[in-house]
């Protein structure tokens, strides 16, 4: 089973330069100041390297919250951690 807290921690590390921001499944990550295309690339790499899940660009563009990304990974991971 993919640990939700670990997933969010890993995502926060990629998304934000600072540890002061709390991330929840409801967070709209695109609205954050640190968000841009480079951050998006890092998210794709994090998901592939940790969960062996490919997140295609067109799918990624339709995801808006942390929960959206988490659900995509849950639904597409072949072997959960």
């Amino acid at each position: 089973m993919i640990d939700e807290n670990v997933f969010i921690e890993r995502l926060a590390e990629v998304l934000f330069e600072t540890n002061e921001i709390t991330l929840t499944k409801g967070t709209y990550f695109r609205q954050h100041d640190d968000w841009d295309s480079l951050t998006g690339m890092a998210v794709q790499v994090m998901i592939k390297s940790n969960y062996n899940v490919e997140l295609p660009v067109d799918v990624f563009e339709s995801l808006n919250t942390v929960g959206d990304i988490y659900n995509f990974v849950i639904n597409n991971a072949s072997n959960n951690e």
Partner: protein
Amino acid sequence: MSRTAYISSIEYYLPEKTLTNEQINIEHPEWAVDKISAKTGIFTRHLADENEFSSDLGFKAASKLLVKNKEFKDKIDYLIFCTQTPDYLIPATACLLQDMLGLNKNIGAIDINMGCSGFVYGLSYANGLICSEQAKNVLLVTSETYSKFINPLDKNNKTIFGDGASATLITASSNQNLKGAIKKFDFFTDGGEYDKLIVKNSGLKFRDNEYMDILNNEGGFIRNDGSLFMDGRAIFQFVCFQVPLNIELLLKKNNLKIEEIDLFIFHQSNAYMINFMRKICKIPEHKFFVHLEDYANTVSSTIPIALNEAIEQNKIKKGMKVLLTGYGVGLSVASTILEY
């Protein structure tokens, strides 16, 4: 006794003309000044003038090196010139540089076409020439004027790349304890991804075609086959997955553990990318050298410029092991270790 090749001196040259984040912001108001620097780590990049070419930048870097190492000028027996923006396709720019620098005529002079991994590739050639006793003193010059290939509408590449040149003197010694000794290398090539970083109209294959700017629905620049094209996402993924593997193999070849490396100097592509890779490779921040704020990504010159700066800042001390890794166009990765 077997020979060792070591780096005995490094110099670099940056063109006088600069392009600041503020200037980029004027041309592209949607590109906020503070965001450019926060993300890329770059404040200024240097650009070759209209009449300034790779040979000119290389000449200036090499001249600085030869002023500092006067006794070597007549001893250089091989010149390697690394560039992807040569003055001519025919002849090699290295031949022009031999004459411009007034080097002996009884030397070898050759160009190598490699980008961001080019400095490490150049070191491997120099190392091979020295260890096989074909040369004793190799001058390795890296020089790029990528800006001449960057489309005026292309804010991404305009932000990241800068022009510049470096010159490195690699010499032979039977003394195994000299600082800057070059150790073993590791390479990776994936030519299947050749079109992820390319100037399509840079050789003979597509020279007769006409080129136009291809824009997205919002009018943003996508590509022009006469200009530099970089699929940033593909490069980012390639680098993040391949560089850690390359480093692992390099360490194995050199019988070292990652903890035994004292300083890591990666190709300075942009601050966000290399810091992300640092985290993937689990390299402590204090062992990771980042230096591109006033230079940007000078392609094959970023590593020698950063290495020179690390030496100047006294970050490299006797006995230290320094890991260099270059990656990018090809797509390619090349890494080595220096022992000081």
